[in-house]
């Protein structure tokens, strides 16, 4: 374990599991991110060392896909959908409300890393637009007030 508390030993079972699979970079990174909440440099180095992939190749993949994060994220992840149906139903106002209420910007976290706000394009529940996803829970027909209230109710 290093001084930031990143235990690269946790990666071992994952690397072992995908050892013999061709092209398993994406699932390895996904699983690694599940452990740390993001992809810390230490973990990237460890994956490169153990899997034989070059570090540039790993970062190439990690920076290409929206799902991967190289910076720590908040304890709670708020996704506001700005897909077409949500957009026309007022999603931009939801984003604005969350940004103002929790002192953060879309794509970033608040100073205490309690919340991370991200804009996504379509969660596929357009019939209930606008939609927000708080951690894993989906909320339909949201308003600025109801969304802010839901977020405040998180522990």
């Amino acid at each position, binding site marked *: 374990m290093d001084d930031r508390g990143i235990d690269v030993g946790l990666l071992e079972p994952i690397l072992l599991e995908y050892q013999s699979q061709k092209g398993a*970079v994406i699932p390895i990174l996904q699983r690694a991110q599940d452990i740390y909440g993001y992809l810390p440099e230490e973990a990237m180095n460890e994956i490169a060392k153990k899997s034989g992939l070059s570090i540039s190749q790993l970062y190439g993949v990690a920076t290409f*896909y929206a799902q991967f994060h190289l910076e720590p994220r908040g304890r709670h992840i708020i996704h506001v959908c700005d897909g077409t149906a949500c*957009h026309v139903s007022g999603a931009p*106002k939801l984003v604005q409300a969350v940004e103002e209420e929790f002192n953060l910007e879309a794509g970033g976290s608040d100073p205490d890393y309690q919340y991370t706000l991200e804009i996504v394009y379509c969660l596929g*529940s357009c019939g*209930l637009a606008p939609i927000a996803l708080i951690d894993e829970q989906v909320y339909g027909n949201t308003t600025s007030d109801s969304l802010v209230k839901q977020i405040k109710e998180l522990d």
Partner: protein
Amino acid sequence: MPVLTNIEELRELRDKARAEITEREENKTTIILGMGTCGIAAGAYEVEAELQSELEKHNITAELISVGCIGMCHNEPLLDIQQPGLPRITYTNVKPKIVGKIIEKHLVQGEYNKRWIYGQLSSGNGKFVEGIPAYEELPFYNKQVRIALKNCGIIDPESIEEYLASDGYSGLEKALFQMGPEDVIQEIKESELRGRGGAGFLTGLKWEFCRKASGSPKYVICNADEGDPGAFMDRSVLEGDPHALLEGMIIAGYAIGAPEGYIYCRAEYPLAIDRLKIAIKQAYELGILGENILGSGFSFNLKIKEGAGAFVCGEETALIASIEGKRGEPRPRPPYPAVSGLWGKPTNVNNVKSFAIASQIMVNDANWFNKIGTEKSKGTAVFALTGKIEHTGLIEVPMGITMREIIYDVGGGIPDKKQFKAVQTGGPLGGCLPEDALDTPVDFDSLTEAGATMGSGGMIVVDQDTCMVEFARYFLTFASAESCGKCVPCRIGGQRLLEVLIRITNGEGTPEDLDEIERISEFMSEGSLCALGQLTPGPVISSLRFFREEYKAHVNENYCQAGVCEGMFTYEIVPDRCTGCGLCLKECTTEAIIGEKKVVHVIDQSKCIQCGACYDVCNLGAVLVKRKHELPLVKTA
């Protein structure tokens, strides 16, 4: 459950499953809950919890079944009650607090609570009760023909038995035991099925190319990377009827000679991935996937690959690169994946719906399918109907139906007595159609000719409140952000085009900008490597074509008719109408509204960000939208 080693055992299991369902329908009370992502978002879990406590309270034994999306997103959450020997009665907009009332009246007093009843669906015995409309008679359903969505919302997607009972895997059975691989391809070719991912290439022909290509092993890939904002057709099939996809893929594997398949599903669909995992596990346990399927000698293995959030991975060569663990960047075609795809081997990539429909074609036959639809577009089209429309949801209609029928009959028209403005198909890579193009028949070629596209099935209706320029800017923001950056026309072109649109929506556009849009769009369409870059200008070009006046008003008069484009107008409060109720003051996030209670309010223009919240919240029509020149827009109270 033991592995099935021959066709008789499969048939026995199917008969047993049918008998069990009949037994349940005739003798038990079943309560069916819509548990697709849409139902859950509308509160289906809360309804389920309430339901369980109500059943306990009244000491009622009933079987609870969760199903996928039946298509009525506008009526979620849904709760169906099926009593012994009776049809399924559907209750809509079921909030937890009315569950008790429904259960008490329906199951305790034995009466139907018509206030919340939507319709009835006959169960296996075909019986209906009087006084409640059958689904087939309801406007949302009576023009629909459900092939790809046949089982969605009807069967329990987590039960392979229910799928089997609904003729499931009988298409596979027919393919493996009564037909050779070439016969299967011939059947699909004769059906004239065109790929449902958007391009509309003939599926049978695609399979044939792949079969004839040299190289082994070959691969079958399902493209379930449904990334279009406003589209959820594939999700509904994956969540509501995952075995239909599996069956289609195994049939394709057999026809092509591929021993291995991948389902590439976007990670934003966790429920779909869970349901697929369950379905795949069940199919392996029964020997419908794996080695020597049903003793036929054919083997097929299937894996799920989760996407990692990149729209461009819906493009087949990018998708293949992503499965290989690389950045999802497309490459030039030819060679097409049918010749050189995954790991350089012949690969067949189809959309979710194409596979689901192919399995239905095998259950029935090519003639059954090609009797539906138009001359060049056979069968049905699945659309996710969203935006400013009464009946949002998922529909499947025969090709050839008009846009007008979809929007006004199936979709129920525009809510709040507003004016229809445009319908956008094909998402951020599609195009829009105005009012006078609404009689265009919906099929691959007519839509393209009219200036829109079939796309994979997103259909978004917008009303007078949407600014077409801003709408185009929105799509461009999405598409240009999703450019993978590999080719210059898409990477730079998209940015330049977006800059022009931003300029116009900010009130800084010039008449020359309209020519600039056309010039950049042409470069992009002709020069981009893949469909993403080629089609990114689509929404802009089609809205410029049909709503040129609106663009002109923006650049010539600095005027946004819909009152959407900030910076083109100001908000003011009409003193005569304002009662000082304080609603707008409370809503204003920038504290731009000043005023005491019961005293006329005023907007401080230096603080106002033109968000329109005050305009929306005022029900007295006291907030005035004033453009920088004249012609104020007043909302009528």
